[in-house]
């Protein structure tokens, strides 16, 4: 046992505790997720799902499920999946359309007003239902679940993990995220090799989901400079639900396309009093603040222009090539360049451009595939509806070209040419001008290191 490495990090626990001022994601029994900023001594109203006093939630860990009982909260323990027994019943004898709700909506409203729990309402409905016993157990289970969800009063709090926040925004409005699905976001962060302590550039017109991801992966160590198209630093709304501590957001600074332009000099008002002497304390404070701001702007510019950043991530409405032209010089050698776009056309045009440039190594373009499954016993299948797209990702590596280095193939062709010219005075074909280095010819040693050997424990059994 590595006892030395036992748990001790209370800070990580507090990250999972709800505090006043946090923006929570509350998941309704129907699966809908709603944001709510929780403030002390207020009432949280969830409409038909009930209302409760906010203080009940403050200090609670994230991730629990509650029933609302008389404006206060009752923690619901986790429930295991019930095995559904398959009976001999089929739906053979049930007529379509007959299996309808036997209580009127007025009757149900009345029961709800009486404070009857959801499963009790469903039970009553079922009692009224002539055909219920004829349905198969699977159908019954499905019916019950749907109905219970419909009449439940309660909710769960969603843990502010990056995955959950991204999923919430994606489901709410994928367009605002420029179609960055959780799987795409995770690929972006890994491809850009974001690590605590790294220094990154980012252009995020995707509501800040990429910025949020980078900040989480920096956790207060390292640097992030974003470039935006407005004067003041943008809001990045996705960050809100993460409830980041201040140290985590302190690593980010923003420039815009004007202030990020080396050839442009921002108009910065002087912070010296025109007369050489401060006229008032107010003037002094104003001018000092101005000095801090303009000094900071100049420092950020200098920092950007000094370059050597470890990576660049682009998820922008602007032509990605126009962005690369501007920011490429500030990347260090071997830096990762990751560009996301909802549409393949934008990135195939970019890919076609980059692969002819020696400063971009190995550009690759991929589309993600994500599929979720229902894994109830006896009923395993992918979800019937799914997200159609999480966008496309282009990845390349910044390299320093050496125009004097020439490929083996060119040499071989040169050698061949020379030989041919020597043998006969024929015209040899010009060397290929392919930007892509030639494919390796068969070579035992290399092949061994590059071909995956299929013998994993798990895969071998399959």
């Amino acid at each position, binding site marked *: 046992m590595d006892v030395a490495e036992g*748990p001790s990090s209370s800070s*990580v626990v507090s990250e999972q505790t709800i505090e006043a001022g946090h923006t929570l994601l509350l998941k309704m029994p129907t699966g809908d997720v709603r944001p709510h900023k929780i403030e002390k001594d207020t009432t949280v109203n969830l409409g038909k799902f009930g209302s409760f*006093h906010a203080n*009940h*939630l*403050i200090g*609670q860990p994230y991730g*629990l499920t*509650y029933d609302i009982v008389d*404006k*206060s*909260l*009752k*923690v619901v*323990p986790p429930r295991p999946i019930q095995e559904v027994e398959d009976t001999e019943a089929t739906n053979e004898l049930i007529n379509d359309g007959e299996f309808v709700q036997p209580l009127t909506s007025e009757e149900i409203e009345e029961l709800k007003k009486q404070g009857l729990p959801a499963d009790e309402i469903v039970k009553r409905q079922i009692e009224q239902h002539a055909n219920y016993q004829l349905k198969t157990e699977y159908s019954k289970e499905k019916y019950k679940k749907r109905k219970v969800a419909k009449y439940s009063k309660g909710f769960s709090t969603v*843990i502010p993990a*990056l995955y959950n926040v991204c999923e919430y925004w994606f489901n709410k409005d994928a367009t605002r995220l420029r179609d960055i699905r959780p*799987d795409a*976001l*995770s690929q972006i962060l*890994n*491809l850009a*090799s974001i*690590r*605590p302590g790294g220094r990154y550039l980012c252009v995020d017109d995707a509501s800040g989901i990429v910025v949020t991801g980078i900040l989480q992966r920096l*956790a207060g160590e390292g640097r992030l400079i974003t470039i935006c198209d407005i004067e003041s630093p943008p809001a990045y709304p996705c960050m809100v639900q993460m409830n980041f501590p201040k140290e985590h957001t302190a690593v980010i600074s923003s420039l815009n396309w004007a202030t990020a332009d080396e050839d442009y000099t921002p108009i910065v008002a002087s912070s010296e009093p025109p007369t050489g002497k401060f006229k008032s304390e107010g003037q002094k404070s104003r001018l000092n603040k101005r000095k801090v701001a303009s000094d900071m702007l100049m420092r950020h510019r200098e920092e950007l222009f000094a370059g050597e950043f470890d990576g660049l991530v682009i998820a922008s409405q602007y032509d990605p090539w126009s962005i690369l032209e501007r920011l490429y010089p500030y990347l*260090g*050698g071997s830096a990762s360049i990751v560009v996301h776009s909802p549409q*393949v056309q934008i990135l*195939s*045009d970019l890919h*076609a451009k980059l692969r002819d440039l020696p400063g971009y190594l190995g550009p690759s373009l*991929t*589309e993600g*595939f*994500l*599929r*979720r*499954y229902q*894994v109830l*016993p006896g009923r395993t299948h992918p979800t019937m509806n799914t997200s159609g797209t999480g966008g*496309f990702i282009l990845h390349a590596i*910044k*390299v320093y070209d*050496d125009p*004097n*280095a020439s490929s083996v193939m060119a040499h071989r062709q040169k050698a061949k040419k020379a030989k041919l010219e020597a043998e006969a005075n024929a015209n040899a074909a010009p060397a290929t001008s392919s930007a892509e*280095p*030639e494919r390796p010819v068969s*070579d035992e040693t290399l092949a061994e*290191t590059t*071909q*995956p*050997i299929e*013998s*994993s*424990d*798990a*895969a071998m059994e*399959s």
Partner: protein
Amino acid sequence: MWSTAREIADGDLVIIWFTRDALQPLHITAGKELNTRFGVYRHSDLVGVPYGSKVGSRNGKGFIHVLRPTPELWTLALPHRTQILYLADIAFVTSWLDIKPGSRVIEAGTGSGSFSHSTARTIGPTGHLWSYEFHEARASKAREEFTRHGMDGIVTLNHRNVCKDGFTVEDTVDAVFLDLPAPWEAVQHAKKALRKDRTTRICCFSPCMEQVMRTVSALNDAGFTDITMFETLLRPQQVDVLPAPPSVAGAAAQLKRAEARREEKRLRQIAQAQRAKRKRDDGDGDGGAEDGGAKGGKRARTEDAEDSGAADTPLAGTPAPAADAAPSAPAEERKISVSKAFPEVRGHTSYLTFAVLLPPAVYAAAQGAAEAQSSAASGAATPQADAAA
């Protein structure tokens, strides 16, 4: 873990990029030489060169790119001891398990170390990874690699069959990742290793559906909730720059021109044949022997031509002018970039079964807190603690 300096130093691990499909990890050791069919390179020549440089070979034949390692490049370049985990899976697992700086994580088995390297990068020096491998040779190799890569502070490697012997930590980790043939045998052990003071997560990586079903059942029995399963893949796209697709008007014009040329030729042949005939009719017999056998063939062709002699009267009008095609010609010069998925792509890696563990300790605390708040804030009905199942 790896060097973050601008330039390569002696002792660094670098990734040599020969081509997209040929990468190789290399420990820079002054005095050694890298001899490949992409050229010959002295390690010492790479020292002091900035990461990301293109380097020509000593003999001027070939070049390489010398890259800073990342877990992703390492995965592409590493000597595979087992089937490796790929980017899409690793990235997605990292995200769903909420692995981030400071996280404490278990993985079993270590395999080729793809997940280990990626996780070490993400959790950073404030996190910790316990990695388990039941295969002794693989475990030794991985241990050696982790040390070389400066990961000793972040990763603890154990040679151990976790299904039989469990994990080496208890009530400690935030997340468990199982890549084992029978993950269900390790589920109870994983439960022990997960910390009890907060919500924790597990992922089981299994290629077969039957493994998923057994795992789901074991997770459910062990009290895990929110059990769900995902598949994630990457579909690489191939980009081609091609001329815009031509118009059929161009094809039509070409066919018409060909037909017109053929007709012209036929008419010429007929005219020639008739002249020749006239000559022959005029009694000009010499040269007959010369033509010899060739004549038969010629005559047949001539006859064909003659037969079609009346074709001077085509069914109607004249052939359309070849200029027909002209308007579309400039459009055909235009180049477009088109893309499609590669012909063969990865169709499956594994099913990723995820679940959450909400331990009773949290419930007790939560209920206590809720209770306290309730009485303090409103004095309303005390929340009741439902006994955990």
